[in-house]
């Protein structure tokens, strides 16, 4: 893997000043700067981008977080907040002239309220740990990103993380009640309330998915939902991806909102089957997993209807999980898709566009054409119910030029998503990774508005600068025009 080309050398005099300022109120062990100590923080889940931070700060209390921010604000030092570092878009990539603010020590579940069905937790608590703590009460936290065993709730808020159940149960933004947020000036604001809405503007929505550019979350109150009584999954096999795509639309048209609706193409099922032995057919073009949850009666009824729709949509075969073990086995394959693809290729690059469901067949066909154009293979796993695609481009970073070809391939997939009326990122965030494609998705006026919103929270642009929103200058250099829903601004002008 390559380091970031412009990785800046650390300014030693500046580092000494910052370390001294932070050590004035933090224990020595909470301020790291030696290369070997800060090395573990050089990248997040997008390991193609690496940069050593100038300093790593590991606060333990909200007061310390505020003082760190106040200090950095005073010294004009940029700050990048980080949870577990599992993000896939480089949102937690450090800065060579900045402080990496790790919230890893904020691991306490402060309160679980079974009557009000909410949990108040610190930002470093793992997503799955919330559901584990709520399980004895028959409750759980719904958003379940595939990294839920490791990713933290603070990171989930920053990225507005999704998961396989969000068509029915919503994204992070739909499952939050309240945040405590430290501002760059070192103050605390409470956003949201213990009720279902709050006075003033919906800052909870604005903060969720803001990729650490507006504030640092120090406490999160989430909603908990009752465990469904029962769940079953239908697995359906198709000889054509277009038919599988139509089956997805037909399920929705039948008035069914499944608890999960996932699709995998043949490249993905082959990799998964060798790796996880989930019982998938590998001789078919695509399979769908469609889950129903609710009461026994509801599930029995819905599963029958789902099976019926799949068969009428041309499924070669449908199979209903016979027991909980089989249901989990069917899902284990889908959940192992990324590592399975990792096992058949030295490297892979995960994309995250969202498209209207009806364009699935067409988009997958065009991805197949792009595979030929770039001479690279691509396996597709797909949150089909939401239209959220995860094409996994297989490559070998040790082959000269392959990473560059992969990035160009990925860029074309994202622009394809925009052409069919979709978006460049459904749940992984923009980070550093998709910053160029933001120039295609948004016009300069929208980008200027985003920058102005950032300055409303962070006047000197010290929180995670350079991520999520490109400068207009960068867009001019990238040289790609803003295209809205397939329409150019001046469609009648000839372009060469």
């Amino acid at each position, binding site marked *: 893997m390559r380091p970031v080309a412009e990785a800046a050398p650390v300014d030693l005099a500046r580092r000494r000043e910052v370390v001294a300022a932070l050590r004035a109120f933090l224990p020595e062990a909470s301020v790291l700067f030696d290369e070997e100590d800060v090395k573990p923080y050089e990248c997040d889940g997008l390991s193609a981008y690496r940069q050593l931070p100038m300093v790593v700060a590991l606060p333990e209390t909200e007061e310390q977080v505020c003082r760190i921010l106040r200090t950095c604000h005073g010294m004009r030092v940029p700050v990048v907040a980080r949870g577990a570092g599992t993000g896939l878009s480089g949102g937690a990539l450090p800065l060579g002239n900045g402080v990496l603010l790790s919230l890893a020590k904020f691991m306490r579940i402060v309160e679980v309220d079974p009557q009000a069905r909410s949990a108040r937790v610190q930002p470093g608590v793992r997503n799955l740990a919330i559901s584990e703590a709520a399980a004895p009460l028959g409750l759980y936290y719904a958003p379940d990103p595939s990294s839920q065993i490791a990713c933290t709730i603070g990171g989930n808020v920053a990225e507005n993380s999704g998961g396989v159940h969000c068509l029915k149960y919503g994204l992070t933004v739909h499952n939050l009640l309240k945040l405590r947020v430290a501002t760059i000036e070192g103050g605390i604001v409470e956003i949201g*309330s213990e009720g279902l809405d709050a006075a003033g503007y919906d800052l909870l929505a604005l903060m969720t998915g803001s990729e650490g550019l507006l504030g640092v979350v120090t406490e999160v109150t989430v909603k908990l939902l009752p465990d469904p009584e029962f769940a079953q999954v239908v697995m359906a096999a198709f000889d054509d991806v277009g038919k599988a795509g139509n089956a997805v639309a037909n399920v929705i048209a039948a008035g069914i909102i499944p608890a999960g609706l996932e699709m995998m193409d043949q490249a993905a099922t082959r990799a998964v089957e060798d790796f996880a032995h989930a019982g998938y057919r590998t001789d078919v073009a695509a399979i769908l997993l469609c889950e129903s949850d609710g009461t026994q009666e509801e599930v029995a009824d819905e599963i029958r209807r789902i099976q019926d729709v799949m068969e009428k949509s041309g499924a070669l075969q449908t199979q209903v999980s016979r027991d909980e073990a089989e249901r989990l086995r069917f899902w284990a394959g889908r959940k192992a898709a990324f590592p399975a693809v990792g096992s058949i290729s030295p490297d892979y690059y995960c994309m995250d566009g969202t498209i209207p469901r009806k364009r699935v067949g067409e988009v997958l066909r065009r991805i197949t054409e792009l595979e030929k154009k770039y001479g690279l293979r691509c396996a597709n796993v797909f949150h089909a119910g*939401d239209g959220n695609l995860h094409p996994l481009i297989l490559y070998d970073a040790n082959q000269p030029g392959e990473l560059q070809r992969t990035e160009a391939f990925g860029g074309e997939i994202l622009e394809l998503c925009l052409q069919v009326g979709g978006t460049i990122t459904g749940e992984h965030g923009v980070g550093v990774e998709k910053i160029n494609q933001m120039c295609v998705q948004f016009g300069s006026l929208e980008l200027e508005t985003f920058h102005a919103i950032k300055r409303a929270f962070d006047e000197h642009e010290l929180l995670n600068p350079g991520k999520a929103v490109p400068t207009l200058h960068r867009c001019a250099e990238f040289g790609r025009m803003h295209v809205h829903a397939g329409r150019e601004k001046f469609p009648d002008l000839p372009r060469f």
Partner: protein
Amino acid sequence: MDYEPTELVITARAGTPLAEIEAALREKGQMLVFEPPRFGYLPSPLAPLPGLGEGNIEPAAPEKRIATLGGCIAAGLSGPRRAYAGAVRDFVLGVRLLDGKGSDLRFGGQVMKNVAGYDVSRLMAGSLGTLGVLLEVSLKVLPLPATEATLKLQCIEREAIAMMNEWAGKPLPITATAYCDGDLGVRLSGARTAVAAAIKKLGGIPVEPGQAERFWNGIREQTDPFFATGLPLWRLSMKPTTPPLNLPGKQLIEWGGALRWLKSEADAKTVRDAATYGGGHATLFRDGNKSAGVFHPLAPALLKIHQRLKQTLDPAGILNPGRMYHSF
């Protein structure tokens, strides 16, 4: 209007009457699941809802106030289903708007999952036209439930609050609750089998469907007799488990305990202190003395962020100034 039932998305211009949108959805078996109030557009109680029957809704007289999509988003109000299905903001997918400088801007989109850029679309919900003029909105829609049933139980307020919270922690297909004067109404929606099973679990007296529809509509549109008199009407949004509020006047409780409507002459400070105690906020919704402000005061740090955001999107302060808070 651009509507794709299999995409679960409807996009319409801001001036589109809500009635038109709801009729188009109903024809395809879908709905705005947050049940926005239409204050001003009211189907007559005995007429079938638009899209069903023969369309015998009286055509609205031009002088009648007709609720529009843009107004619905800007007001940010949600109806009885909110506690169980989500609020307006939860269903906003994208907007096109004019900011205070006259820039024509698009945020979000027409897909379910989209994390590109700040979520300006949802920020518009409930912003009362102070941040931009909405031109076009895309919303997520959902299927109509196969069946609905309403039950009525008799209990005291404390029991009602406890029951509503206990039910919400169980996998029951509840989509609305309302308590007033010793009567607790519960609406169940979903598959026939699931609703039937829940009726057995909850007990109570089944309400005749026409009467149930009128009851929930009366709460959604505030035509229920509770809302009739001229006393100041307060809206207290708070933690659902908050015990009965010891305030003078009359109350109607919705949203599983999370919304308390209060008709009372109590002074603003008393009401706001009660809301703060319940972890929430109080709005002087209708009538009364507005000198203490309509909306719950914001903490200074939060107010500063509001002022800066307003300044960002409307630097000249021309969009509905003072509508939300006096200072912007």
